[in-house]
């Protein structure tokens, strides 16, 4: 049994070794990291005037108060919730090939949540007052305000998705068995948490009677369905890239199983869309205005119309590709389907949900919002931050998970040195 001092020393050694993992790599790794750092730098430079002058540097105004940032936030919370789709077959259905990649999936969810939280942070007007939102220190309007709920729930989910993989990785590093009594309940808890984060995010929009476009009961189910299409799609593509560049073994069977579950979610996504459209178009009340703006254009304003149609067609094609096993179980068509569904759901759930909620505004005015270049670069910067964090996490996690980087290896390396110092 190691003493406390030994454990601390070992943890520090582990951390220093992971740093060496992070800072060494192939040429492509360096190029990728430098590219991401450049994008992050540009994003940060665009953010500084927003801090200094105010949110007037964006294109948001009183009529459309949430724009590109909250669109991305909504999408990313969905992506993060989708990591649970890996956990479910691994632990509930005991599907072997997925079990080893659960850790990577959860780290992916953690990077997604960090991106989502960053998007909310840049959208806040007074970031210097962020501590007002911390429970017990600030004055949180819990349980009345859904944003307060979201702060609590997102942070719990982030903690879960950091604790579980790090615990499992550290245990693997030291070649020890994880304590199942501790970790399995946490893993199972992350399933309802994933559903919770996305439901709470949906309820943020759902609970506003001032915005009839969002005040539909179907919003939370739509969110969950679209999350479970797009999130795993990104995971499928990312894991193929990882398989290409590292030694991690991910079987095709695992990817196809995820794709099969996605097909159900895609069907539900389309079905919910059809339900929404029937309700609005058949009832034909004046509340159809936002949907009409989105799909047809309202009083000559039709900026979003081509976007949403492209998105919807992409969703449809992706569904067909995923429906038939012949296209689903072939990597080339699978990848096309994944890219289509990622882009399609982003359009439908990001700008296609947030912006029409504000058009027309409660007094009937129409202000067509398009993000300006500053907002775009800040958004790219945050996406780059998320990718960088995920890359660095993978750079540490994969060698550990594949057994290449472990304490036994380390012991083997230092034992000649140890023997040398002991003999001296």
């Amino acid at each position, binding site marked *: 049994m190691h003493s406390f001092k030994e454990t601390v020393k070992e943890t520090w050694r582990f951390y220093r070794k992971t740093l060496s993992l992070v800072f060494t790599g192939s040429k492509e790794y360096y190029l990728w990291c430098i590219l991401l750092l450049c994008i992050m730098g540009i994003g940060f430079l665009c953010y500084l005037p927003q801090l200094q002058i105010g949110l007037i540097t964006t294109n948001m105004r009183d009529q459309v108060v949430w724009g590109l940032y909250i669109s991305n936030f909504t999408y990313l919370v969905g992506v993060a919730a989708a990591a649970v789709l890996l956990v479910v077959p691994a632990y509930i259905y005991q599907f072997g090939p997925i079990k080893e990649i659960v850790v990577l999936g959860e780290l992916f969810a953690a990077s997604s949540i960090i991106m989502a939280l960053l998007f909310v942070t840049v959208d806040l007007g*007074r970031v210097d007052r962020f501590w007002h939102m911390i429970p017990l220190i600030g004055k949180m309007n819990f349980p009345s305000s859904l*944003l307060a709920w979201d702060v609590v729930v997102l942070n719990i989910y982030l903690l879960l998705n950091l604790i579980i993989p790090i615990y499992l990785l550290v245990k693997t590093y030291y070649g020890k068995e994880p304590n199942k009594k501790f970790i399995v309940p946490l893993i199972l808890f992350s399933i309802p948490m994933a559903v919770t984060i996305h439901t709470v995010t949906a309820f943020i929009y759902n609970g506003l009677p001032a915005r009839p476009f969002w005040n539909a009961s179907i919003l939370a189910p739509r969110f969950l369905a679209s999350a479970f299409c797009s999130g795993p799609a990104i995971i499928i593509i990312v894991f193929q890239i990882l398989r290409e560049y590292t030694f991690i073994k991910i079987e095709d069977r695992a990817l196809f199983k995820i794709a099969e579950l996605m097909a159900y979610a895609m069907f539900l996504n389309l079905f919910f869309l059809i339900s929404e459209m029937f309700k609005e178009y058949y009832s034909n009340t004046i509340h159809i205005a936002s949907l009409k703006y989105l799909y047809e254009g309202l009083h000559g304003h039709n900026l979003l119309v081509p976007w949403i149609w492209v998105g919807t067609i992409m969703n449809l094609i992706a569904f067909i590709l995923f429906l038939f096993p012949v296209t689903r179980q072939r990597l080339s068509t699978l990848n096309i389907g994944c890219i289509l569904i990622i882009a399609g759901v982003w359009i439908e759930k990001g700008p296609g949900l947030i912006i029409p909620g504000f058009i027309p505004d409660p007094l009937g005015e129409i202000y067509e919002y398009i993000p300006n270049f500053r907002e775009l670069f800040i958004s790219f910067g945050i996406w780059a931050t998320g990718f960088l964090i995920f890359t660095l996490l993978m750079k540490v996690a994969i060698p550990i998970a594949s057994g290449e980087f472990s304490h036994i290896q380390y012991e083997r390396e230092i034992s000649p040195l140890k023997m040398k110092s002991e003999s001296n």
Partner: protein
Amino acid sequence: MQGRNFTRREFIRNFSMATFFGLSFPFLSSCGKEMVEDFLQKHFLEMTHEEKELIISRLEERYFKKYGKKFTVSIQEAIPNTLWGYGLDLSRCIGCRRCVYACIEENNCSRQEPQSQWIRVIRLRKGSLINLEDSEHYYNPDYVPEKEFIYIPVQCQQCENPPCVKVCPVHATWKEPDGLVVVDYNWCIGCRYCMAACPYRGRVFNWAEPNVPKDKWNLSVHYLGNRPRMRNVVEKCTFCIQRIRKGRYPACVEVCPTGSRKFGNLLDPQSEIRYVIQNKRTFRLKEDLNTEPKFYYFFEA
């Protein structure tokens, strides 16, 4: 290999430390004390009376330093047994927008670059009044009123079930005992959820630092009302809280040339607003949303 790692690590460590200190330099400078005070300020409702007085004197000092004018910040509380109500005679409103600009003058709103207006007058065609989608906000004829149209001024309706209060994540906006919905500008984090929740577009956002000409400041202000605001916080009509708690009419009521605006205490049976509700055909906007606004519109002629 080990040597190369070390120098690279050291370089990154030194670079990040330099950046950190460089970015934190503004905090260490003289305005740092002000920023720290602002950062740590408590929520208005949780302050004791002495703390509130301290905050006011600090604010007055700061306003004098920044704007060169002597402001009097009041924290006058709600008068007991009052519930403020507002009446608007739609048959007499001619859409002249004098109320909009009187409000801007009274409440120290940003005039130009950026422009911030708390009252919005919309124009609707006679015969079609509920569908606000057909409203025109930017009408600018030579003379008002125009024959075919009715003008409806809209501002914060001071709802009894305010959806904005329900959704604010940090409790920066709340309903006072006299029915007014107010914002603590020093607590607001600028998330704009309340603006998304308001069905009447009653709230506006300070997208940039407010810009008021030097000689146009209204120096008698209320902490929760018309004091000079900062950028990136939400603001709204407060029925001129600085006036009504002293018994004066709000600025928009005083300036209206046709006398379309009525104001009073809903709990006083002798008040003007009670007379209006009892004798005129009053209605409120978007009553189906159950927000119970205190802004009663009525028609007469």
